[in-house]
Structure formats: C-alpha cells, structure tokens
C-alpha cells in the first residue's frame, strides 16, 4: 500500500462505496492520525499518478484496462535513438549505389582508353606492314570501327532501323 510521509496507511483506511455490477468503485482514503478525515483528492491523485505502475501490476492490468477517472495517464514517450534509424539505412544504401555508379563509369572510361590505345597501335603497325586496302580503307579499320556508313546509301535515312 501507499506510504505517506505523514502516517502509515493501512487497508482499513481505504473505504469503498458505490460498488456496481461493473468492476468499478469509488474510494476515499482516511487519515487515521487526524480524526477520520479524508485525505484530499489532489494528494490521492498525485500518489496514484506516481505509483500507477505498481497498482496496475497488482491487478495484472494496464493503463488501458484500469482507468482512474480524472487521472490521465502519463504516456511514455517512444524510445528515440540519437541518430534516426532511417538516416543510417539511407547512408548505407547511398554508399552502395554511389560505389556502383563510380565503378561502372570508371570501367567504361578504362574500356574507352583501351580501345583508343589499340587503334593507335594498329595505326602504327599499318605504317610498317603492307595492308590490304579496299577503296583506300584498310580492312582492319573496318573491323575495329562499328561499320562505315556508305555515303551513297545513307541519303535514305528512313530505311535504317533506328534504335
């Protein structure tokens, strides 16, 4: 039971009245040290507010199932970590995506450089070795580049499947 600074409260100090069919009742707490006067309501309310948890547990109830009229329960705030969780997940995903983009771009640039180096090497080779020419274009060049558009046939653009 509640321990008051002023006196020790016992079960005999709590008086019930107005008991109904419903499990609900009114009660007052008497102060036995002063001639059967009741403890003022505000003090009882304050005491209940402080010890709400213990009362709930005694009845195996919760704030939702045990209601004290006129005493609104102090709701516990939700636990908030110092950094919001979503920022952490966001940071992880962002790093992964950026890493992927950088990797793809860099590998693309490397491939491009390799292609350029190969074509300059081939050109150096061509100057030393005799190559078969066809209409003035070396055969290897035709293989490296993705096909030349022959100017005669290119006039009719509509024929080609645009991608």
């Amino acid at each position: 039971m509640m321990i008051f600074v002023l006196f020790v409260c016992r079960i005999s100090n709590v008086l019930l009245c107005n008991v109904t069919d419903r499990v609900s009742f009114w009660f007052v707490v008497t102060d036995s040290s002063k001639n059967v006067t009741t403890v003022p309501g505000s003090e009882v309310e304050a005491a209940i507010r402080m010890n709400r948890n213990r009362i709930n547990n005694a009845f195996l109830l919760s704030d939702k199932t045990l209601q004290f009229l006129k005493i609104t329960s102090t709701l516990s705030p939700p636990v908030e970590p110092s950094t919001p969780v979503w920022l952490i997940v966001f940071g992880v995903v962002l790093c992964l995506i950026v890493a992927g983009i950088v990797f793809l771009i860099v590998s693309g640039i490397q491939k491009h450089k390799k292609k350029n180096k190969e074509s300059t090497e081939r050109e150096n080779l061509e100057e030393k070795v005799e190559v078969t020419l066809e209409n003035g274009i070396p055969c290897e060049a035709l293989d490296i580049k993705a096909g030349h558009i022959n100017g005669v046939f290119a006039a009719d653009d509509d024929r080609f499947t645009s991608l």
Partner: protein
Amino acid sequence: GFLIPYLIMLIAEGMPLLYLELAVGQRMRQGSIGAWKIISPYLCGVGVASVVVSFFLSMYYNVINAWAFWYLFHSFQDPLPWATCPLNSNRTGYEEECEKTSSTQYFWYRQTLNISPSLEASGSVQWEQALCLTLAWLVVYLCILRGTASTGKVVYVTASLPYCVLIIYLIRGLTLHGAVNGLVYMFTPKLEQLSNPKTWISAATQIFFSLGLGFGSLIAFASYNEPSNNCQRHAIIVSLINSTTSIFASIVTFSIYGFKATFNYESCINKVILLLLNAFDLEEGSLTADNLSEMKDYLMATYPQEYAQLAPQIKNCSLEAELDTAVQGTGLAFIVYSEAIKNMEVPQLYSVLYFFMLLMLGIGSMLGNTAAILTPLSDSRVIASRFPKEVISGVVCFMNCIIGLIFTTEAGNYWFDIFNDYAATLSLLLIVLVETIAVCYIYGIRRFEKDLYTMIGHKPNWYWKIMWAFVSPLLIISLFIFYLTDYILTGTLQYQAWDATQGQLVTKDYPGYALAVIGLLVASSTMCIPLGALVTFVRKRLKRE
C-alpha cells in the same frame, strides 16, 4: 465490383490495341517516330507526342519511388513509426492532429509530406524527401548507365521479385482475420457502380496504363522482333498475363483491405461497448458485438435522458462503410497498406517486403520511361557524336531530379496530383486514337491485313478488324466526350487538400496558375500531332518551290 468493367475493357480495347502496336512496330521495324513517318509523313508528330508524354511521366513518377524509399527506411524500427501517434508537448495525450485522424494518415500527411493546407502555400523543400528523391534518381541512373543492354538485365530482377513478394502476401493475406470480407466485397458486382460511367472510364484508363499503350515503347520493342514473329499470339498472351497479374494483385489487396476494415470495425464496436459500459455501469461481458443493437434499444428505452446525452458520441459502426472508404490517389498504396501492416505480427518484415516490392515495380516503370526518352536522344547524331551515353543519361537524370524537387515542397503533393491526373491521361487517349485511325483509314486496313499475312501467315479474323475499325475508336471518342462534358459541367477543376484542423481532406478549387499549368501539360503533348503535320506540310510546299 470493378472486375466486370475491367475485363470488358480488356477484351474490347486492350488486346486489339496491343496487337495493333506490336504489329506496326514489327512491320515498320523502326521506333515510334520513324514508324509513323512511314505510315504517313504527316504523322511524325505522334512519335514526338509519345516522347513528350514519357518526359512528363519521368519527371513526376520517381517521387513515388522516393516515398517508397522513405517508408522502407522507416520500417527498420520497433514499433513502426506509423503505428502510434506522437505525444503532445505536455505528454498527457497524443498530438491533436493525430487524434482527429488515424496514426497512419498522420504519418503520411504530416511526417512524410508535411503537407500545406493548400496549393498556394508552397512552403519549403523538405530535405528528407529531397534526399530520398536524389537516391531514387541515382538508382535509376545506375540501371540505365550502360544503355539498353544493362537495363535488360535489371528488368529480370525488377519483374520477377514482385511476383515472389505477391505470393508471400497472398498466403499472409488470406490467413488474416477478416480477409474474407474484403474478397466478398471485391467479387460482388455493384449495379449502381456499373451504371456510373466513371467506373468504365477508370477501367479503360487502367488498361491503357498497365499495358503501356501510346507510350511508343511497345512499337520500339516490337521493332526488334523478327518479321515472322507471331505477334497475334504474343498480344493475346501478354494481355492475359497482364490481367491475371492484376487480378492476382487485387486479390491480395482486397484480402488485406478486408482485414483492415474488419479490424477498424471491431475496434469501433469495442469503443462503443466501452462507452456504454462506463456510462451505465453495466457488468463486463453483458454487452457484446452480437447483442449490441438490442442492448442499445433497451438502454434507450430504460434511460432515455442519459442515452440522449450520450447519443452524439455513439458511432454507428458499419463494416460496409469501412470497406467503402475510398482513399484517393497515390496515398492509397501507402496509407491503406501501412495501416494493415501495423496490425500484423512481425510488422517490420512485411513492411520491408511490401515497400521493397513497390520499389521494384516503380523502378521498373522508371527504366521503361527513361529508356523512351534516351533512345531518341542517343539516336540523334547531333548529340550522340559529341557526348558519350553516360553523360547524356547523367544530364537527363540530373535535370529530372532538379525539376522533381518541386514535388518535395510542402505543397508538392498537390502538384504531383496535377501531373498524375493530367500529364498523361488525355494525351495518351488522343495518341492511341490517332494511331488506330491512321492504321485503319489512312494506311488502309486492307494493306495492313496483307502485311500481317506476309508476317504471320494468316489474315486477322473479323473480330480484330471490327475492333480496330469501329469499336476501339468509338470507345476512345466516348471517353473523350465524357472527360470534356465532366469538365464543362463542373465548371472548374478541383482538388483534395488536407485540412490539419479537421484531420481530413477537403475539396478546393485550383488557382489560376495551376489551371494554366494543367492546360500547358495537356496542350504541349497533344499539339505535337497537328504541329508535326503542319511542319511536314510546310516543308513539302517549300521543297516543291
């Protein structure tokens, strides 16, 4: 109830038009701009209009992915942030706005969007949403970086994963309490709904969007097919698979919807029971859901005065009303599902799964859209010769991201609704109408028949011909007439604004500049078609002279 219009529209519109677009692409062997040039040089505007529509779509669609990311990142907490209301300043109760509406709606409108009371009050850019939007665009850039080759591989994942998640949700959804109510609701046809033309309109637009007609992407993809490919069979198979998936997804949706409605209905009843028990000091257990109505009558007769005092607080709980609650717009996917998920066991798992699936679907759509924009850009030799395709994709993504920041402001959701409702719908209808009329009447249906004969080996039977020549154009024209009459009758266009003081949506009129933007959106894509015809006409006259 939606099933009947949906299936009818599919057979009358979806399949014939899909077949038409596939056949055109396969025969002309070119992307959308080139293919229409071949059919008639005056129709080059049709392809351009498709590209413009795709451009508008890509501007606003990625915001949905940003929201999906936001919810996904917030799913890793216990309890889920939308499960409970935040407390007010002196910790005696919940926040006022959250009390008036539900916690999931509060999370959507206040903590995700931080929505302003009207379109005019623009507010500032929400940095959290801007971050998520940037991330969404980075993901899209990663997928389209290497061109269509890499996009093809990504689509394997984005297309198959949603099916797995849907199956998991189907099992979970059907085992939920109250799921049957939702399913019954879905399959019972409602005659008043069927007589309302709006249902048919939404069924038609839904078919258009889910099949992707009018965007030009179908023609482009079909142009890669072999000429002897049996596109008739493919059209039928694709549209059937598409609809089966839609129906499958809606079974999942409605079972979860039924669970949510039943849950809300039962909590409403419990609240009423508690209220009556408290007021009349009755014994616990004397009032149950079954005898509630009789007990209410009894109490009304025995204690008329007290009952009359209580009457305004006693709500009439109805399961039908819960099932009928129409949630508007894209908020539907987020509000309804997050509300259902928070009541399940292990909600974090289901939340992560659901929003991941939503992301996959959204990114898949974005890839198609951006591909539709990038292909003409990288084909035009002016641009492609100077910049490599990584740079072009990067510039497009960056520009779209900057424009998309508008949708992350406090009034951003209202602008989003404008784009969502007006950017694509009317223009697509017009494009598809022009396509059907062009193929049937300008190109000639007999010539088209012969082309199909050379490609597939048999002529299309009378069903297809009647659909192409008469039914589909008539349907589309009637849709148009309906939209226009609806606009003329209501006088001005209206939108739903969130009122924080009441905790619900209210209807407001669009201000002048918003109407101008709507007009611009619709005009810029539809005007391409006559402009293209005009430009070709002028060019031909100049050439002759």
